[in-house]
């Protein structure tokens, strides 16, 4: 491929900004300067779909009504573990309001089997596991009809408790080793690991050095065990689909983080080519990592649509969402760190286990492996199977659990060495980005006013803490966008990529507008439809970094095509043309220009299109991380045990910031998730029945207005010179450090450490009594 060289901004403005030469494919656009010199990119441009959202016009999957549409509902196992002897659907088949009945295949979690005989049902392994579905004229009829299904169960012993599941003689969830395809959510699940009882693993990550030697050479070694809870996603829109099966293909509306992932699974499961399956996600009500693939509900809806010949909508209700639609696994994380007198880390060793129910992915990630300089590192991470529905990727899977341990223990080592935790990180952290974030964040936060732990007089004490995050610069190279110019002046950008509420539509419009010298509002964004070129799945914080370069490149290609058509009209050659302020100019002769709209009128054809994909990272794959530093101030009432987070300062980087307001919003979201993880949310399972008992918003405690602290964000501009937009996502990084910044602040308030989340009043009071 032809190459060319670009001179690109590199580094952090105001700190170490310089320029770098990058050899890039010849068809890449020229390098953009820093944001200060751009018109649309890097500004707080209003969300392009905000008006639709504030007027109730935005149509989500759960709002879709197709002519003749039926309502699907599933009968689910009431037992955590049972053998199905018989399924009798004769009565429900005769119900006048029911137009299709379907029994899911043997492998229910993937639901691929087409064989419906009950023999294929040896076992159900979790409460809520779907078995039979009906499609009825309305929701209530479907619910009524399911009562007519008779299932004969042989109830089997179960285990839902993490510790009990590890014991010898515990009821087995799987008899033989199992694997899971990696989801698109940023989880890394190692294959080929052994299974002993309910224990799978260990996964050993990427060890380095010799930890034993490292600990032997340490001046200080501390070992602790950190425990985290199960955390539910609870997107406000539940999982669900509308499926319209036709002999020649399927139309699917899905609340998903990956239109193409849903398409691919449906195509495979229903024997269609990918081109015969169309998936649409115009608006979706949040995912946070849990919404990938067809899902057993989607497969069921597909079968019901196929059987009834009518479209079927199947949305989970809130209880089904909580019971079956994913969660962040819990973790028990034994962490041992050794350091020298000067603070340098000499060894990190970790061992963890947790449960994703019948699923995999209960690790503590790679943050302990990656964030700090340490020559010796070893990890062992185990998955424990239990009779509960499978977990799912949840905003920075593994990293949030891992960071709670790592950043707690780093604080404790700093204290043992009598070094301020902020300064200590200057010693052990080589990241330039986090160094600047620490400086700026500490100043805005007022870190210098931090007092000695537990020194506040009186029963109500304040405390300050900080923590850092690290997240890889993931990108998804199979990301394509198309830009269309229309004679009537319309400019469209199209891609299959979906907008989860993060603002993808808006940043696409911004980069296209910037490239074409137009305004963001001049651009029409059509995304979330697999008829358009494939976009990335939205997980692992890949979206912005993957699809915006593709969109910019497509806009650039479209522009060059347009230049070729109109250059002669300006008595020049295409290479002399440039765009700015809604006009096309001859470079160096600003008086020779034509408005962009007029140029479009003169196109040879009604439409002009160009398509481009995300190219490989300039200068080779990025090895450095996305980092953040967050500061928390809390108030702890030592007489009641209640903790309130008063304020957070969050300093973040995500490459070139594309839309400041939207990045702030994303950071707010990550912080609020983190606070809630630290203090409020926890799945409660009754061990006697294996049932989750806080299945509603009444008892599963997500935060509301009075739980929200004052949040200040610092968004660092940072240019790694890796793509034509140089942008990266912010979803994951925003969520990693918060919970542990809060617990570090709690320690500073009361002088006692808490090793288990969520930090409930009971735990505070208990810790104070033990201290």
């Amino acid at each position, binding site marked *: 491929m032809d190459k060319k060289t670009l001179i690109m901004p590199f580094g952090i403005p105001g700190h170490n900004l310089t320029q770098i030469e990058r050899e890039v494919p010849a068809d890449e656009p020229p390098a953009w300067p820093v944001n200060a010199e751009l018109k649309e990119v890097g500004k*707080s441009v*209003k*969300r392009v*779909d*905000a*008006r*639709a*959202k*504030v*007027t*109730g*016009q935005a*149509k*989500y999957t*759960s*709002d879709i*009504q197709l002519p003749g549409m039926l*309502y699907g509902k599933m009968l689910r196992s009431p037992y955590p573990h049972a053998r199905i002897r018989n399924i009798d659907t004769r009565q429900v088949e005769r119900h*006048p*309001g029911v137009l299709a009945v379907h029994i899911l295949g043997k492998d229910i979690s993937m639901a691929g089997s087409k064989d419906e005989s009950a023999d294929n049902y040896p076992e159900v392994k979790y409460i809520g596991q779907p078995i039979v579905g009906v499609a009825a*004229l*309305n*929701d*209530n*009829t479907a619910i009524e009809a399911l009562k007519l299904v008779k299932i004969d169960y042989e109830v089997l012993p179960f285990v839902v408790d993490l510790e009990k599941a590890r014991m010898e003689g515990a009821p087995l969830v799987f008899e033989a080793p199992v694997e899971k395809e990696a989801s698109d959510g940023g989880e890394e699940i190692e294959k080929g690991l052994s299974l002993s009882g309910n224990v799978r693993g260990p996964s050993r990550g990427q060890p380095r050095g010799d930890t034993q030697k490292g600990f032997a050479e340490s001046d200080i070694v501390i070992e602790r065990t950190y425990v985290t809870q199960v955390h539910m996603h*609870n*997107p*406000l*829109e539940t999982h669900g689909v509308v499926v319209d099966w036709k002999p020649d293909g399927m139309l699917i509306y899905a609340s998903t983080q990956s239109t193409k992932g849903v398409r691919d699974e449906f195509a495979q499961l229903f024997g269609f080519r990918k081109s015969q399956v169309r998936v649409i996600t115009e*608006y*979706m*009500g*949040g995912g*946070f990592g849990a919404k990938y693939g067809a899902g057993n509900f989607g497969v069921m809806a597909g079968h019901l649509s196929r059987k009834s010949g009518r479209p079927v909508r199947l949305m989970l*209700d*809130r209880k089904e969402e909580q019971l079956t639609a994913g969660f962040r696994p819990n973790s028990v994380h034994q962490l041992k760190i050794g350091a020298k007198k000067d603070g340098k880390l000499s060894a990190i060793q970790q061992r963890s286990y947790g449960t994703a129910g019948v699923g995999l992915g209960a690790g503590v990630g790679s943050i302990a492996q990656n964030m700090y300089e340490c020559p010796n590192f070893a990890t062992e991470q185990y998955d424990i199977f239990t009779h509960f529905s499978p977990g799912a990727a949840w905003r920075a899977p593994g990293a949030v659990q891992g960071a709670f341990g790592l950043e707690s223990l780093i604080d404790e080592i700093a204290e043992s060495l009598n070094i301020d935790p902020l300064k200590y990180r200057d010693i052990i952290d080589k990241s330039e980005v986090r160094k600047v974030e620490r400086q700026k964040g500490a100043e805005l936060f007022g870190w210098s006013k931090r007092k000695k732990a537990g020194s506040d007089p009186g029963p109500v004490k304040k405390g300050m803490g900080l923590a850092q995050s690290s997240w890889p610069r993931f990108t998804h190279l199979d990301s394509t966008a198309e830009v269309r110019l229309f004679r009537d002046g319309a400019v469209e950008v199209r891609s299959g990529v979906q907008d989860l*509420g*993060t*603002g993808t539509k808006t940043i696409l419009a911004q980069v296209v507008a910037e490239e074409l010298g137009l305004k963001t509002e001049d651009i029409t964004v059509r995304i979330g439809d697999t008829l358009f070129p494939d976009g990335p799945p939205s997980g692992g914080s890949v979206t912005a970094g993957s699809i915006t370069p593709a969109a910019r490149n497509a806009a650039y290609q479209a522009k060059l095509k347009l230049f070729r058509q109109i250059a002669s009209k300006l008595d020049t050659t295409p290479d002399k043309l440039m765009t700015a302020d809604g006009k096309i100019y001859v470079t160096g002769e600003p008086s020779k220009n034509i408005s962009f709209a007029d140029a479009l009128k003169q196109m040879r054809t009604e439409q002009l299109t160009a398509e481009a994909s995300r190219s490989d990272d300039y200068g080779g794959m990025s090895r450095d991380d996305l980092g953040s530093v967050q500061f928390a101030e809390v108030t702890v009432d030592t007489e009641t045990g209640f903790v309130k987070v008063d304020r957070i300062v969050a300093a973040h980087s995500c490459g070139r910031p594309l839309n400041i*307001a*939207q990045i*702030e*919003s*994303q950071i*707010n*979201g*990550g*912080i*609020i*998730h983190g606070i809630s993880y630290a203090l409020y949310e926890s799945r409660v399972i009754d061990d006697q029945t294996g049932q989750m008992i806080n299945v*509603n*918003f*009444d008892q599963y405690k*997500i*935060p*509301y*207005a*009075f739980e*929200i602290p004052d*949040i200040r964000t610092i968004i660092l501009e940072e240019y790694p010179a890796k793509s034509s937009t140089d942008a990266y996502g912010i979803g994951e990084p925003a969520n990693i450090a918060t919970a542990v910044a809060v617990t570090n602040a709690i320690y500073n308030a009361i002088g006692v450490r808490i090793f288990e989340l969520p930090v409930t009043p009971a735990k505070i009071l208990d810790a104070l009594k033990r201290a």
Partner: protein
Amino acid sequence: MQDDHQKPRQELPKKGLSRRGFLKGAGLTTAGTVILQGGILGAEAAAVDKTLGPDAVTIQLKVNGIQRKIAVEPRITLADALRDKLNLTGTKVVCDRGSCCACTVWLNGKPVNSCMTLAMDATDAEVVTIEGLAQEDKLHPVQEAFIDHDATMCGFCTPGMVMTTAHLLENKPNANLDDIKHAIRGNACRCGTHPKVFDAALAAVQKMKKS
């Protein structure tokens, strides 16, 4: 939601139609007649069985300024009636138990959870939904402020947030941050828009003062 498998609907008298006339017209054969509000019922009808349903009953209500007639089973919630019968899908059902306020609409001028309100309880009522907040193309100042301050993310909580906030500001033009938090204390958001909802609401207070 389709009702095509349901039995014939019972009809309610239209306002203004005399009760006697209505009963005649309906043939006096079914048990399903009703008067909608306390005090309307005259003594003459006291002997009539006023039980309605369980099949669909036609009720009248004013939605976003327009008088509507819908057939609902008594078990249908106002949220479902709005979404399925009137295609007003801006109102969202999230927790379905009154714990998240995504379904907030104004019922006779007060914000309520439409998921926990039976449509029957909205008989003859005035309902305003998110679709009815703007006057023609002119957005409510709260809607404008939500756009200006990036107070929407996925947008699923937004209709409830906007309806709750707009009600506060219509009734308390000098609302401060604490008032705003009190008003939306039941409105869940999972993306994290709360901080910007606060900003937007405070900006809307200023905006409404000027206009």
